[in-house]
């Protein structure tokens, strides 16, 4: 019997339909503009297909934070462990997560957006796997299933699922409403994923063995990192694994700078990067796609700005990612804020995915998509 915690953020997504770019602190305004709650419907789409699953027991919150959704989906076994206070969705979400953590659950299934994911993660961290039913305005985080139906499949197949890393991202809604998109990486949660065949250089894994993949990438990067060269390491668990292999303690969510396997600077901002790279002959950037959409630049690591990339040179940007992450990301995206620099990345890029192993991945380049493929041919 698997114990599933369910948290529905009933107001998630309301801001989107009325142009509010997020619902944080704007519920009343959204209602006034005529928005109607839709999170409950999204949650039901994920729950109805699993109403016959016998080996699941739901722990949830009162009313439209879970109870009424479960009842409306025809799910027979559930227990209400938290009563919503109704002050704000964020407070209730966090409190509910705290109760579920205490009660002990195998998974927290939630329905909401990036804000909901962030609230729950702030309480449970990596202790409990998270899976999102997508219902928010913004969903940059990697914890979301691609659809409510996909979430249902993952929950019923939880026995066979494996866990992967998933970034918790959120946009500063105030800044976003003012016209600037600033995503931040808040943490790296664990999310169930369907067991798929994932290929590394030395073997075909029947499951996405993320740690082994990261170790292979780290071994290879250690081999090819040049003495004297300055390396900027982006955020995430793959770059963290490289640093760990070099014997360096890296910030998981920040950008660090390394030379000769020694830490030069931790958790630096754009200014510090520009200062550190000033006058350097050879600077390299090692980054991994962040978030569900596959951004290699422009989300979660804005410290590595257009100016920083220009200083290193596009050819010196080394992208690393586990095969499983690449399998889930059909295309990579670049958004440095400087479209001409974005175009310099071309239509595809090499991504290191194992020991002496790379994949060629498409980069989504809207303006270039008509010019046809030019990748792939090497002549002696």
């Amino acid at each position, binding site marked *: 019997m698997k114990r599933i915690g369910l948290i529905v953020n009933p107001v998630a997504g309301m801001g989107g339909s009325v142009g509010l770019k997020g619902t944080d602190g704007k519920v009343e305004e959204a209602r006034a503009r005529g928005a109607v709650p839709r999170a409950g419907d999204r949650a039901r789409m994920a729950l109805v297909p699993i109403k016959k699953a016998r080996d699941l027991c739901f722990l949830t919150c009162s009313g439209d934070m879970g109870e009424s959704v479960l009842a409306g989906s025809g799910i027979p076994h559930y227990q209400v462990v938290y009563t919503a206070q109704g002050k704000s969705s964020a407070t209730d979400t966090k409190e509910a997560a705290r109760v579920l953590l205490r009660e002990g659950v195998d998974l927290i299934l939630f329905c909401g957006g990036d804000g909901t994911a962030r609230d729950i993660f702030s309480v449970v961290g990596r202790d409990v796997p998270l899976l999102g039913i997508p219902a928010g305005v913004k969903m940059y985080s990697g914890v979301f299933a691609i659809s409510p139906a996909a979430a249902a499949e993952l929950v019923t197949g939880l026995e066979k699922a494996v866990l992967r890393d998933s970034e918790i991202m959120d946009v500063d809604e105030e800044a976003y409403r003012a016209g600037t998109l600033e995503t931040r990486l808040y943490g790296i949660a664990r999310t169930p994923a369907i067991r798929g065949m994932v*290929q590394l250089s030395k073997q075909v894994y029947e499951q996405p063995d993320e740690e082994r993949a990261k170790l292979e990438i780290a071994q290879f990067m250690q*081999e090819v990192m040049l003495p004297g060269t300055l390396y900027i390491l982006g955020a995430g668990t793959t770059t963290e694994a490289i640093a760990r292999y070099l014997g360096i303690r890296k910030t998981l969510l920040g950008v660090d700078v390394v030379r000769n396997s020694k830490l030069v600077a931790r958790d630096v901002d754009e200014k510090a990067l520009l200062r550190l790279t000033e006058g350097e002959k050879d600077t390299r950037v090692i980054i991994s796609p962040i978030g569900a959409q596959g951004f290699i630049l422009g989300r979660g690591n804005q410290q590595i700005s257009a100016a920083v990339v220009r200083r290193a040179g596009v050819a010196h940007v080394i992208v690393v990612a586990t095969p499983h992450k690449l*399998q889930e990301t059909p295309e990579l995206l670049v958004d440095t804020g400087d479209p001409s620099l974005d175009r310099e990345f071309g239509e595809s890029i*090499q991504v290191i995915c194992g020991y*002496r192993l790379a*994949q060629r991945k498409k980069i989504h380049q809207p303006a270039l998509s008509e010019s046809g493929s030019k990748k*792939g041919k090497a002549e002696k």
Partner: protein
Amino acid sequence: MQTKILLDEEQMPKKWYNVQADLPSPLDPPLHPATHKPVGPDDLKAIFPMELIRQEMSRDLYIDIPGEVQDVLRLWRPSPLYRAFRLEKFLKTPAKIYYKWEGVSPAGSHKTNTSVPQAYYNMKAGIERIATETGAGQWGSALAFATMLYDLECTVYMVRSSYTQKPYRKSMMQVWGAECIPSPSTKTKSGAAVLEKDPETPGALGIAISEAVEDAATHANTNYALGSVLNHVCLHQTIIGQECREQLAMVDDYPDIVIGCVGGGSNFAGIGFPFAGDKMTGKHKDTDIIGVEPASCPTLTKGAYMYDFGDVAGLTPLLKMFTLGHDFVPPSIHAGGLRYHGDSPIVSRLVHDGVMRAVSYHQSEAFEAGQTFSRTEGIIVAPEASHAVKGAIDEALKCKKTGEEKTILFNCTGHGNFDMSAYDAYYAGKLVDYEYPDELIREAIGRIPKIQ
């Protein structure tokens, strides 16, 4: 408008062409794995019959094909040469495209051209059993067919990932009476050692070679047979290029460009060596001879030209060749037959000398070319052969740009009838375009552990 250019059976070549005779200087010799001294005939006696050792080292220009071997080859040879009119029309190219169709053999590929003489010479030497390895199963099934003809037993170590991906190749071997074992196996020390380190390994050709060589070396009645790389294997395949030259002469043509896919190099050698000989002896100086390899295992385009082992365990002699390192395990692309870390020493030498050259492609573009070929010429080619098709299409498209009416010849090595799951993966968008991160490796060279 002649589509098929056919030779009569009596026009089948009676001799193999030995390109070693036309090399300006002898090949660097294979070295003993322990002593690093040149290997002599005696060193190879444990696993090869003397006639094949003689052929391996011969510098005679031609070597007779035994009558009894010719009798078997006539089951499918001479193979047809096609003019690819429909492909030309589709590409709107002024180039003339010809392809040699080797898929007409009983096993469905060019591999039988050498499995038959190899089995024959082993039978003549009194050998009772042959051990070998196979990647995608083409070689294993070809040797199973050949050993059956001469009443020899046959044990095939098949790379495990292919063993599960391509079960019907294994079934073919069974029909022809051979035993097929997934590699790495516990039957050999080298296989057991790999399994102990990595129980879930998909295997690799280099590991399977170690197992087959060990099996042959530890059983007195058993010899080893290799389906590619070695000089005598390339020699046996030269019947392909010799037939092509005759067939093109029948329509008053000679190729400007000759193309083959490259794994271990034998089919490329087969179609390319006779033309490389013409080039080196000044008869046709300008022929462009191009090997096409996968970007995931780009031995000739990205490897180093140096001595290296032919297998993972380091049991084989050291060969001077282009190599990515004998410890390099290529990713499991669908063109399993092209997954080899090294290359034929003769092909390597000719590429090094500039007589031949190489290009590489990602697997999805090769499949796309394979699809174009199937939809114009009809034949569904093996993923390996689709690399040659891609090379030919690109050369034909270059001619379209320049307006040149070049003659392009390529080797269509085998059918893809057992590779439909690979085509399914292509249509499902599931093919991963693996590649070798050569720039990072080249920059750091010297910091990477040495091959020996």
